[in-house]
């Protein structure tokens, strides 16, 4: 186990640190006590992770802005997925809907059809609008425009409206498992919490929200 951990620690270390990875690995071979060797190996994984994070920070890849962009991309993927699977089911693209459904825990195409049929066209339009707004938010964020944050908040708000509407459709309860509904709810609560926290921090100079907005300070 210690050897496996040491291997993972070595993989985590940047290539220019390969001699240090070898140093930690060979040192472990001089430790006779198994428990100490295991602790040493755990430490080497931590060291590898620490160094990898430091390199990311040094290359400015792990910034608030890049995390915000990643966050928006996740929402885009999720929105595109939701509207696509609903449309595919509504249009009876059985293969496509079933293939996408494999990514949802407890998905059954037969149970999803009544839901897709019960969804009004306005809801599809709303879901499409949410997707467009997330894409616009991403574009503005990449251009470091302050409006990105407002557009993102608007998209999250509309997305929440669409989900609440879906919750009111009786077929939704049969199509989506309670666990999956809880996960979606928790996701919205967490997102709202983060957005509120960023708004509260907005009064401070160089605040996270300003950085999320991408304002040049």
């Amino acid at each position: 186990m210690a050897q496996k951990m040491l291997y993972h620690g070595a993989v985590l270390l940047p290539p220019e640190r390969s001699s240090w990875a070898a140093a930690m690995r060979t040192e472990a071979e001089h430790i006779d006590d198994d428990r100490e060797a295991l602790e040493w190996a755990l430490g080497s994984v931590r060291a590898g992770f620490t160094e990898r994070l430091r390199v990311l920070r040094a290359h400015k890849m792990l910034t608030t802005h890049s995390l915000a962009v990643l966050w928006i991309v996740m929402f885009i993927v999720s929105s595109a997925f939701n509207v696509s699977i609903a449309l595919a089911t509504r249009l009876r693209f059985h293969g496509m809907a079933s293939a996408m459904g494999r990514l949802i825990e407890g998905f059954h195409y037969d149970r999803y059809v009544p839901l897709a049929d019960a969804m009004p066209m306005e809801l599809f339009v709303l879901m499409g609008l949410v997707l467009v707004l997330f894409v616009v938010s991403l574009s503005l964020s990449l251009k470091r425009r302050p409006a990105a944050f407002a557009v993102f908040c608007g998209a999250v708000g509309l997305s929440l409206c669409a989900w609440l509407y879906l919750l009111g459709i009786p077929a939704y309860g049969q199509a989506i498992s309670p666990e999956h509904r809880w996960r979606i709810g928790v996701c919205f609560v967490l997102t709202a919490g983060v957005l509120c926290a960023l708004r509260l921090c907005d009064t401070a100079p160089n605040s996270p929200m300003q950085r999320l907005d991408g304002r040049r300070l």
Partner: protein
Amino acid sequence: MSRPSNASRQTHLLLAVLLEQPRAWRHGYELAKETGLKSGTLYPLLMRLSDQGLLDACWRDSDQPGKPPRHMYRPTAAGLALAREQRARTGVGALLPARVKMST
């Protein structure tokens, strides 16, 4: 070469231990034992000190037959100067673990 102006307590501790035997080559396990630092804390510190020119590192054959060579460390002149400077500023006794204190 840049000196760690806001070096952590662990860095001070490691430098203090290195100062105990300034000319001796010491391996990571020994340093971990003497400082009480885990390998996950010790090695990033060693890498940083080496990057800053405060620590020399080399590979040496192991004393134990059948064991692989070991990566050994000792402070450079700049590392020793920094260790002495921080010892004068903070005092070694406050930083070293009990085991090391007894040997000083």
